[in-house]
């Protein structure tokens, strides 16, 4: 039986959510196309590999400590060897800091077509189709792929569903992975986690979040007034943190924090997928944006097309006057 190869992602001893999303996707694609799902785990022992046992058909693992922390040269060598020898139909990774670093070079080395930031992949009767987005999520693209024995996809984080238990019982198989000889030209040193500060936005019940549309830092007090009126904490999207208008610890999104408040109010945030991944599980999402085509409206429950600087003062009045 041909197979889908899922490259598991873990950090500091724990599997990343994306791994289960990959497995969820692989499970569905496998079922549709009669393919088994094999997971490759580099740098974990049997106990670690067992955590994936209920989510796929086979787990290949190597507990070589040199793979414990992701390092491109080692991973590339090990994975290209496996891909060449197993010739799967599909290799599945995540469009994460690890997958983005690894996949382009792995694909080039193994000669596979790679769809990064992939939103869908299917074999139809006549075609192979992949879906992704262009122009910061403002255009959807369907790609018709040329025939190939193996494809490689980097799945957009948060887009697919998956859970650790899918009622499967995978075989566990240890394998000796090849390791590069001599000194590597790239070396992992350490993880650095941002220090926590005053407000932990993951604890907030209500979040008011600002994006590029805020225009300039002077407008932030306007938002603070509104947030204060509804008892919300303030968070932001990447451009605001990039400009250092708010600390990085307030950033919602893949490279920032994942939040799940009762209400998430997105002001002037266009909604790049990285941002969406960090907030789309909020119970209620209200989005204000001048651009009616902004991708944020695709995850929002309530949308307002307008300039946040015009909406906010009025809205602040409304929420304060009716509070009594």
């Amino acid at each position, binding site marked *: 039986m041909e197979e889908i190869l899922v490259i598991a992602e873990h950090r500091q001893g724990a599997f990343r959510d994306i791994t289960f999303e990959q497995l969820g996707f692989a499970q569905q694609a496998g079922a549709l196309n009669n393919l088994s799902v094999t997971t490759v785990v580099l740098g974990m022992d049997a106990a670690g590999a067992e955590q994936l046992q209920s989510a796929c058909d086979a787990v290949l693992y190597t507990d070589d400590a040199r793979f414990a922390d992701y390092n491109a040269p080692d991973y590339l060598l090990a994975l290209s060897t496996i891909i060449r020898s197993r010739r799967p139909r599909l290799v599945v990774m995540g469009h994460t800091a690890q997958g983005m670093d690894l996949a*382009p070079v792995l694909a080039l080395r193994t000669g596979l077509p790679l769809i990064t930031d992939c939103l869908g992949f299917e074999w139809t009767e006549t075609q192979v189709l992949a879906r992704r987005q262009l122009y910061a999520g403002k255009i*959807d693209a369907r790609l018709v792929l040329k025939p190939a024995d193996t494809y490689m996809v980097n799945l957009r984080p948060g887009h697919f569903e998956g859970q650790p238990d899918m009622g499967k019982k995978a075989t566990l198989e240890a394998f000796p992975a090849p390791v590069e000889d001599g000194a590597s030209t790239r070396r992992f040193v350490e993880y650095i986690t941002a220090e926590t500060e005053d407000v932990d936005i993951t604890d907030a019940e209500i979040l008011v979040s600002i994006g590029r549309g805020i225009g300039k830092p002077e407008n932030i007090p306007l938002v603070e007034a509104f947030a204060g009126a509804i008892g919300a904490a303030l968070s932001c999207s990447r451009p605001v943190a990039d400009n250092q208008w708010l600390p990085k610890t307030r950033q919602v999104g*893949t490279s920032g924090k994942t939040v799940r408040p009762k209400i998430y109010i997105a002001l002037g945030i266009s909604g790049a997928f990285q941002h969406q991944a960090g907030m789309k599980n909020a119970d209620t999402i209200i989005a204000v944006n001048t651009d009616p085509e902004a991708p944020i409206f695709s995850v929002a429950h309530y949308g307002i097309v307008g300039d946040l600087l015009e909406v906010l003062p009025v809205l602040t009045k409304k929420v304060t006057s009716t509070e009594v």
Partner: protein
Amino acid sequence: MNIVVCIKHVPEVIDAELKINKDGAGVVTDDLEFDINEWDGFAVESAIRLKEAHGGKVTAITLGDEESEEALRNALAMGADEAIRFDSQGFEQSDAPGIARGLHAGLAPLAPDLLLTGAQSSDDGWGQVGLCLAEMLGLSYASLVVDFELKDNLIIAHRELEANTLERVELTLPCALTIQTGTNKPRYVSIMGIKKVRRIGIETLSATDFDLEGMIGAEASFMAERILSPPETGGHAEMIQGSLEEICERTAQVIREKGGLA
């Protein structure tokens, strides 16, 4: 230090209304303003700062049509020393490795000590070209770099991971880095600055100068076709409409209903 930075001239789309062109494979760019890709601006700034601190030469290269020389002029005005444009003729419908093959042909003779690119482009967003180039040049690399320094023969870089976590990696030169936004503050390029560099010749290369037959364009691409469509906007969102007063009234009501203002 021989630094090469790859850049791309892209349409600005944040506030723009995008229309799909007739054949459905691209967007209408006539009404769009073009600029240097946001990520690439940070990459150029990184290159210039490195040069200012350690000396060396910065060469900017792009693969694009004549219009894209504007991005190169921008890089020159920021402080790059030389610029190369690889003409995009023949690269229509190339996939990312195809683009990388062209750029590789153009910049391999420069034998860079350090190759910098943006982590991705704002139009296609594949996030592949920089790393493909590294691989083609046989360089070690790190992607999504938010901060790096040069120490002797070593680049100490911080990669941006998920959840407010960074990863410190060390690379030996020569190597390649793809730069994430927010790394620095790209300097303002004045019109005067651009005028000053207008006499710097931009070297033009084209696919015909190299043996790229069958390695670029639609022929070499893994894609047979691309069909664009407007995104499924709105999804399940209820769009609140009316006068500003009405909109805000309704929004306040929603906030109240959903447990705000409790």
